[in-house]
């Protein structure tokens, strides 16, 4: 498989076309806005956080296929997870997209998120894949300002 078809796997294209949890969550008690000025991506992540557990999560916004699919798969992976579990998953995800997952990571730990392993071959696209995650972390911390990848 070429590096490019590794990047644009079917799962990614599917989540791009039919993003999951793509709406504004009513009753969200945490939210944040993320911005990637380089490509004009903008994303909003909404959370319903109860006792440190993510009960509900959704997102909205515009972006490239990688950023939208990443947001979609992120929301799908985090429902019911604790804040600490979310943070741990972010670290693994980040390591995979920046340094490549080979050897050091068990793909099972990342589940479906492993489809983003191809991103590490495209350093300029790392920001696209991590925008949703940075925005999520801002929401979890209760930060009000806009998160930027720049």
């Amino acid at each position, binding site marked *: 498989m070429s590096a490019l078809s590794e990047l644009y796997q079917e799962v990614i294209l599917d989540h791009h076309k039919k993003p999951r949890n793509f709406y504004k969550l009513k009753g969200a008690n945490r939210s944040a806005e993320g911005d990637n000025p380089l*490509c*004009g991506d903008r994303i909003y992540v909404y959370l319903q956080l109860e006792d440190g557990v993510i009960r509900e999560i959704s997102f909205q916004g515009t972006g*490239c*296929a990688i950023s939208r699919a990443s947001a979609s798969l992120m929301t799908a992976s985090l429902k019911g997870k604790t804040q600490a579990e979310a943070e741990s998953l972010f670290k693994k995800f980040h390591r995979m997209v920046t340094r490549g997952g080979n050897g050091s990571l068990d793909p099972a730990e990342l589940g479906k998120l492993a489809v983003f392993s191809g991103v590490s071959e495209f350093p300029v696209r790392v920001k696209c894949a991590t925008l949703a995650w940075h925005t999520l972390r801002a929401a979890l911390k209760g930060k009000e300002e806009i998160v930027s990848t720049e």
Partner: protein
Amino acid sequence: MNELATLTKEVKEPVSERLDVEAVRKEFPILKREVHGKPLVYLDSAATSQKPLEVIETLNHFYRTTNANIHRGIYLISEEATALYEGARKKVARFLGARSWREVIFTRSATEAINLVAYAWGRENVKAGDVILLTEMEHHSNLIPWQLLAKEKEARLEFIRFDNEGHLQLEDLDTYLKEKVKIVALTQMSNVLGTINPVKEITKRAHDAGAVVLVDGAQSVPHMRVNVQEIGCDFLAFSGHKMCGPSGIGGLYGRKEILEKMNPFLGGGEMILEVTLRDARWNELPYKFEAGTQSIADGIGLGKAVDFLNRIGLDAICEHERELVEYAMNRLNEVEGVKIYGPHDEERGSALAITLEGVHPHDLASLLDAEGIAVRAGHHCTMPLHQKLEVPATTRASFYLYNTKEEVDKLVEGLRKSKELFGI
């Protein structure tokens, strides 16, 4: 002829009226390379142009044989370096149609040239309540320096709008010129829309109303004949690396009378005549504005780039690009879902910003890169312009003298493949 004479020799007339693109391509070593196993298709010349061999070798030759600081050494190679650097300035001055080489100030970039004016001219001349008139299509480099000035001086920023075809709405110019407009600063060619603005006409109207005019020539100077006396503008900023020259060199043309009245921009060595602990007298033009050791080799390289462009001929380059853009617009229109921004007539520059329905510009650029095609995706340093177009980003293909119709075909093929992959 010795080597120094070869470097100093100036080419003034093009060798032929028509551009032989295959011959031109042979002069650009980078065009032989492959990326991702495919021949490089370089469609990002509005960001930076590629460099012909003679420019690359000029840099190499300078550092190997003539490297010395300029304007101060009493020894031979310093004199040679000074002659080369000042020779390059004269070539640029003639290339732009300036009356004197003293009207050409070398800077690092067009951006620095505009900042020079905003600081050195702006701070003396713009007062609270004055209007600084720009357009909605300016590159950030011709927007942010004026925002900084306007905030400091409590001056007003106003903008000439553009219409659906990317043409300026000149009635806005007339409306604002009835107010206290101190300066009109605008691009001659949009780096996104490709619009060529009627800078001569605008300069005339602005001058009649007592305003000063700065033209951002970063996109126009590499691609068409630009003559500052014919335009009549007070300032023109240009970039070396977009016109086949090295990066790190650009410049400002300024009318002598206005430059003489201005205070310096940066202070330091070279820009002074006499210094005491408490005071200094400024050097004459253009050195008053060239503090510190200049980018000597790059300036000389820019002179060589001017020779190169003169040899090929700006008219031939302009005609070649016109044909290419016309062909590209026709071919791109064949692809369903493609939208082209900017003028759809022939009188336009060679920057083509597009969107492809269903494929984000950033994805499109990645997919084209896999085909060896280098395009730019994003807002191209024109965020307000994209806000007006109501798109977060576009994909931009921009052409220069070395691009071919076959490369346009590859671009179109790349768009089709991208649609296929995205299932559109």
